[in-house]
């Protein structure tokens, strides 16, 4: 194994505590801590990396100082999921460092919550007894089309059976027999239009007079 200087390990460890190490760097740390010549300065962190090694026993053998470090990170919301599972494993076993015991209830409680299971099983019968609230869209389309055709057909039939109604124009249309009669009808029609026009004009003048009076009163 290559020799690694203290400064390099210290840097890697610092990065590790901050969850900033790459997989390669973590592998380097594991390699370092799983050999015999570990610098006494880093001895405290050794159990941590041994536990993370997949070939190692799962029995937690973490020192209080490492747990302290992890707890600090945990409360700062800076731990990785792996670090949090190490904390859970440590605090849910029996041999917890005396000074760390006040933190145990948190992890032990979370562990209890995580074991809660739904008593009721998933049952198909359950679903079959539940009234269906959603109707298939295809059937909705079919039903809508059927209603459209029935109602539409009814109105078409109604319209077809109705007797022809004479329009006003048709009802009043009179075919004159000679030019004199035609002139007479034309004059009558013009007189009627003239009456209507005069009536309208008179109403307009009346309205304008009212407005002018109102204006005068306002001034």
């Amino acid at each position, binding site marked *: 194994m290559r020799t690694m200087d203290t400064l390099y390990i210290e840097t890697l460890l610092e990065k590790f505590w901050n969850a900033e190490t790459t997989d390669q760097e973590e592998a380097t740390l594991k390699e370092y801590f799983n050999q015999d010549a570990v610098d006494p300065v880093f001895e405290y962190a050794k159990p941590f990396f041994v536990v993370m090694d997949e070939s190692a026993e799962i029995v937690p053998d973490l020192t209080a100082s490492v747990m302290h470090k992890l707890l600090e990170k945990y409360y700062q919301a800076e731990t990785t999921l792996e670090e949090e599972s190490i904390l859970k494993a440590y605090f849910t076993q029996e041999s917890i460092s005396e000074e760390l015991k006040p*933190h145990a209830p948190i992890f032990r409680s*979370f562990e209890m919550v995580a074991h809660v299971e739904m*008593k009721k099983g998933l049952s198909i019968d359950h679903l079959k007894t539940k009234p269906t609230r959603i109707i298939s869209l295809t059937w909705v389309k079919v039903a809508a089309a059927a209603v459209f055709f029935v109602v539409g057909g009814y109105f078409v039939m109604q319209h077809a059976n109705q007797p022809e109604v004479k329009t006003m124009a048709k009802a009043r249309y009179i075919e004159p027999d000679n030019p004199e009669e035609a002139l007479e009808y034309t004059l009558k029609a013009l007189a009627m239009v003239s009456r209507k026009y005069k009536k309208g004009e008179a109403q307009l003048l009346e309205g304008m007079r009212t407005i002018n009076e109102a204006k005068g009163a306002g001034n």
Partner: protein
Amino acid sequence: MQNENNLFKQIEVFKNKLFRYALNMLKNELDAEDVIQELLVRIWQRKDQFDLIENKEAWCMTVTRNLCIDKIRTRKQNSQDISDYHFIADHGAPPDIITEDRENLKIVMDVLNSLPENQKEIIHLRDVEGYTYKEIAELTGLSEDQVKVNLFRARQRLKEKLKNFKY
């Protein structure tokens, strides 16, 4: 029938996670079961589309969350009178649980229940279910930074409340 069984097998894997999430939000076992039942009905009615969903767990968690929010909005009164603590103590505790753990659970649950809803939800998703920040952000609609801030506050509150704790 084979398809039906496959459908339920897929959900069975994370059924308890969904239930715990609903329980955490609703504080009531029966309401939580109702929500899971409603979720199943929705899946059942759209089982063809459900098969196409890539991350079924994430989808189910999101629907469960929405159903819980609907339930909270529509229920006439807050049914927190049935404490989830008793339920968890009865169903989550191992048979050889010590009395101390039961008592401590009540204290921790009281602290958690005193947290704002988003903090309570986030600490549950992270510390109980082990979701990543990214997954929690997607589920709650918050940014990853907001998730971390809420988690930080929730854990600080726990630390503060439990610092003089005797074990």
